[in-house]
């Protein structure tokens, strides 16, 4: 069994975290690529899946099998229905100009679309939350972020007594949730604790005229956060 990935330039822990973000967003091509990078040429037997030398490799292999199973199931159904099996056109991946964020648009109905966005550069975590808190215009969001310290470098502070000591009476939450609107679109934007946000937008006045109009709307939001 090979676990060379742990000695390579890439950090498998970060790749593994990013894989879950991409999968959540529906960015299947990126998720697939990340999984391949984690696993390399590794193929574990069912027996060695039970933890092997590296639990992350084992977990990644398990996820590869789960996705492969779903793929096979989907392809069998397509074949039975006489439909093409492969993706003829994967969903368009939107990326911010600065390159810290990416996301995929999901259709909910003809006027409602959900954008699932995730951080592609985990070193930008702290800025990601600050930007969202700033856009929310919520003082509470800033105060809560101060306590959570997501993505902040640790070092010396980490070695000292931990912040939990000061949190005995503290209620912690993230609470980054806000609305944006223009003459035709209302968006509800919600951040999670796991380097993601989702924006659900409703074209309340007129239906969107094209896919490009929808993608343009969410791309603008992406660049507003990652400016």
């Amino acid at each position: 069994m090979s676990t060379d990935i742990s000695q390579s330039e890439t950090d498998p822990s970060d790749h593994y975290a990013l894989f879950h973000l991409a999968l959540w967003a529906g960015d299947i091509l990126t998720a697939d690529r990340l999984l391949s990078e984690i696993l390399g040429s590794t193929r574990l037997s069912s027996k060695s899946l039970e933890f092997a030398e590296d639990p992350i490799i084992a977990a990644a292999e398990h996820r590869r099998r789960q996705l492969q199973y779903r793929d096979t199931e989907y392809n069998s159904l397509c074949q039975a229905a006489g439909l093409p099996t492969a993706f003829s056109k994967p969903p368009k991946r939107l990326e911010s100009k600065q390159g810290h964020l990416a996301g995929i648009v999901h259709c909910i109905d003809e006027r409602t679309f959900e954008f699932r966005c995730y951080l592609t550069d985990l070193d930008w975590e702290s800025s990601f939350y600050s930007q969202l808190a700033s856009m929310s215009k919520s003082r509470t969001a800033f105060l809560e972020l101060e306590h959570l310290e997501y993505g902040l470098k640790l070092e010396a502070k980490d070695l000292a007594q931990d912040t939990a000591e000061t949190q005995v009476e503290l209620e912690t939450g993230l609470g980054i949730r806000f609305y944006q609107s223009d003459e035709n679109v209302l968006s509800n934007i919600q951040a999670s604790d796991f380097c993601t946000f989702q924006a659900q937008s409703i074209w309340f006045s007129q239906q969107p005229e094209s896919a490009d109009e929808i993608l343009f709307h969410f791309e603008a939001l992406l660049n507003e956060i990652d400016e």
Partner: protein
Amino acid sequence: MTAIPVIVRSGLSGGETPIGSVRLLPHEIGIASAMFSSTYILHMGMHYERYVVSGYLPQFNAVQSIYSTAIPAANATTKTRAQSVTGNIGESIAALVARRKLNARRLADIQPLSVSSKKKTPDFRMKFRPMFPWSFQNATGINPPITFDFWPVESKAAQSDSVALNSVKSALLQLGTYWYERSYHEPDVVGFGIVVSFIYRGTKNDPKRCIRVHVFCPSNQTALQNEIADRIAASDDRTGFLTELGTENSAIRGYLRDVD
């Protein structure tokens, strides 16, 4: 109203230390569940609202005419809660608690772990900063040097305290599986593990919600390591090891703090 107290407890029955509370909004549970839970359920946030939040909200005058989580959704159903939904809520809680209360400050500090649909392994590996925080020291009464990189962590949800205790006992076996499998590669982690248990409703007489972080530590790590090594050398008797770990007052349980 939606804030839930978090308490660190040593093992199953040891000392406790409160570490404040977490405010869990439905959409936060929704995303955590979509990322870390095993069952494919859409709109988990709304499930969370109806299953957990409902009954804990004031009946604001402003929404009295609206069918909402505050009223009458709490009591206007004949249906039971679906186990796969409460299971999903349970699987997502540990990640949120780790981020907010245990200083898992980088996203990669949380690693979902399930490696097989058949073997009962813990849900996560997690890194806390520091690895043995003040609250753990206070609850367990010890401050051991931690030389392993990640804690094995299992995440559970249960309706009441007594049901939660049983699920923590079964979670201990999942930690045991990890110790057994990792003992050769990572002997220092043997005996250390976390079970996060979310009691989402309580009982009629004690309708309190809380999240308990059960911290398991060895009282005699060398003996526990030797026990595993002997069983691996003899006949790879993991089943026997787990059976004894699940048996009250067994020798193996004696190597852990605050279990019996």
